């Protein structure tokens, strides 16, 4: 995609020329919103057709918690797969009927102050804004609409006979796969990756951050903050900063 873009000439005048439009890729959980994948999942589990089913689902998910913690430490994709098992047996209708309420209750209210401004600024400068998230697509589509983003690349649940199987359709949006999806998006939409931006809070997104010309750490976890300092990546704090991150930033 190529679009006209105003550039300021050397004397402050305006010169119309054709230049590729950059894209801005945003991770969502922890980056734009303070919640993580667990929050909307718990919302769905707590809102089952009967209280008994809610309790049962919550107990089963809690039983998987130790495995999820281990998975999170080694492989974000495996973590996503374990977490999304919680959706098993929920009807497709229910997923979508509850999506508006889940978005309002869990996602929209958890947006960091400044997140909307940041996305708006990217749009003002003509960027295509793409959300790249491990969260379910039916929530990310709503968030994309709310923020005015161009598109979202999010996880899709497998549906069989109108019910979620608890499995994720390929590709699972997590870790290095995000980087591949970003490259793919840039290639098919005519963006020069050197001009593109990516934003994330998590060390697990370093592959995605590394493929663009302008990576940016947002509310960075300790490991990402350390890496961002080493490579002089811009660091933004949309939420409160952790004590560890604050201490790290004070180091000479």
């Amino acid at each position, binding site marked *: 995609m190529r679009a006209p873009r105003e*550039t*300021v*000439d*050397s*004397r*402050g005048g305006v010169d119309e020329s054709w230049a590729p439009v950059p894209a*801005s890729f945003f991770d969502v959980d922890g980056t734009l919103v303070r919640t993580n994948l667990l929050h909307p999942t718990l919302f769905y589990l707590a809102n089952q057709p009967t209280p008994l089913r809610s309790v049962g689902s919550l107990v089963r998910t809690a039983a998987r918690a130790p495995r999820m913690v281990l998975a999170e430490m080694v492989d974000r994709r495996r973590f996503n797969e374990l977490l999304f098992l919680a959706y098993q047996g929920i009807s497709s209708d229910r997923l979508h009927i509850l999506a508006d309420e889940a978005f309002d209750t869990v996602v929209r209210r958890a947006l960091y102050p*400044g997140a909307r401004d*940041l996305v708006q*600024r*990217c749009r*003002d*400068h003509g*960027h295509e804004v793409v959300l790249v998230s491990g969260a379910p697509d039916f929530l990310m589509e709503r968030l994309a609409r709310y923020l005015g983003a161009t598109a979202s690349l999010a996880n899709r649940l497998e549906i069989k006979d109108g019910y979620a199987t608890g499995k994720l359709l390929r590709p699972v949006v997590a870790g290095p796969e995000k980087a591949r999806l970003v490259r793919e998006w840039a290639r098919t939409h005519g963006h020069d990756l050197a001009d593109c*931006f990516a*934003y994330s809070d998590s060390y697990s997104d370093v592959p995605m951050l590394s493929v663009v010309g*302008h990576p*940016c750490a947002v509310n960075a976890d300790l490991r990402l903050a350390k890496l961002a*300092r080493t490579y*002089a990546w*811009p*660091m*933004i*704090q*949309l939420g409160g900063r952790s004590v560890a991150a604050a201490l790290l*930033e004070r180091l*000479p």
Partner: protein
Amino acid sequence: MSSNGSPSSAVFSTRPGRPRGGHPLVVEIHKRSAPRAVFSGDQLVEIDLPVGARVVYPRPPLEPLKDVDAAIRYALSHPEGAEPLYAKLRPGMRVVIAVDDISVVLPPMQRPDVRERVLTIVLELLAEHGVEDIEIIIATSIHRRMTADEVRHMVGDRIFKAYWPRRLYNHDAEDPKGMKELGTTDHGEVVELNRAAAESDLLIYVNVNLVPMDGGHKSVGVGLCGYRTLRAHHNPHVMRDCWSYMDPARSALQTSVDRIGRLVEKTLDVFHIETTINSRMFGAALDFLHKNEDDWTGAERAAFRGLSFTLARLPQPARQAVFQRIPSPYGMTGVFAGECEAAHRRTLERCQAQYLVPFEGQADVVVAGVPYISPYNVNAFLNPLLVQVMVQGYLFNLYRGAPLVKKGGTMIAFHPCTDDFHKEHHAAYIEFVHDVLPQTRDAVEMHRRFEEKFATNPSYIEMYRRGHAYHPAHPFYMWYWGEAGRQHLGRVIVVGADNDYVPKLLGWETARSFAEALEMARGASGGRSAPEVAMLHVPPIAMVDVTP
């Protein structure tokens, strides 16, 4: 540390009979002269200047005002070209007070800061006249936001507790709702100002005038504006047409700022309060750094040796802390209020009385140490781009009349040029130095190819708005700031650099010692036997009033 191998007087001899100016602050070097002390970043070194070289020393600090509060009250009641401040006040009106940011004074001054003293009296006056709708804006323009601690130091505990952060805050030039366009000058300069200031019934500006380029229309016309306005004059074309930045009458930058300021004053009721300070940058312990080294006592010489020995052994952060964390005992020498240009004329007179030193002739070679601080690195490291702006921007421009160095002459500077940056304050500088400079040093080309990309980078803008980073256009302005010097100077030789590639990126040469630098300079002057050498002995600030 003394640079070995002082050149012989046969090579750098005096020129008998040539007028030397004769001013007591212009000291000519003789065979038995003591070595001169120069800053090399946050270290001190001694150099042996060639016989016949002239050293320009700063004027001694002017006597501070005896009763500062009385002087402030008098200025508010007897303003220049305007009615007294009290006559402008009425209950229920909306008043915005704007104050200069941390870029002045350097280093920050001992408490109470001049701004605290002025603000205290102004706020009392407002309260007496029933004015309650008051906001205080720190006029940062596109500088970094000041931290809460820095603001508290500047305005004092009482004002800080009463106003921070809702009614005392940093200007945000990138807040889309926080800026208002006032119009366009007859030269096409778009004037966009802080909305709260633009919509106030009365705007009061509290300035601290460190150097002659501060204050006047620059206060509001730069301090409260944004990128759209700044780019009209902060560009290579305007910068090349300044002789010098410190001589407002001959500065194209100042001319543009004046046009912007006059448009602002047509639209808004602005009451200016300008203050001047003396040059007492160092406390009693370091007072000898103001003095001619030939006049140092034994104790002062020992103190210098001890200090330079200690600094050489301290790690850099400790050296930075030694110099930057100790506030300066500046004294207030004047306060002038009222209409912008009328008040500023008085300010400039006072400023020039402190800084100007007459100097006859121009030199082939100018020598200057680069100190540890600039307006843009308070509480941060003086990174390579700021070293550049100190050499080709500030030190070169500390003149009136004609540059101290001849066209095509050489500047010898002392600095380690360490490749280090404050990761937050100067985030965009890093990309500028390591991505833009390797591609081009041509200011016009970088202005055309790169400036807008930086200036619209959402990540950097977010760091400016919510963190404490300089705006991403700022590194470009720092390069343009050196443009007049770059166009005038034949070469810059840096002594004491800890690497070769940073000076190379800046377009400079390196020498291992001052003697080697002098030999290189002699070669550049066509091998003439006696290039004229002058040294600017700063800090504290001195400005040369050059008669070519």
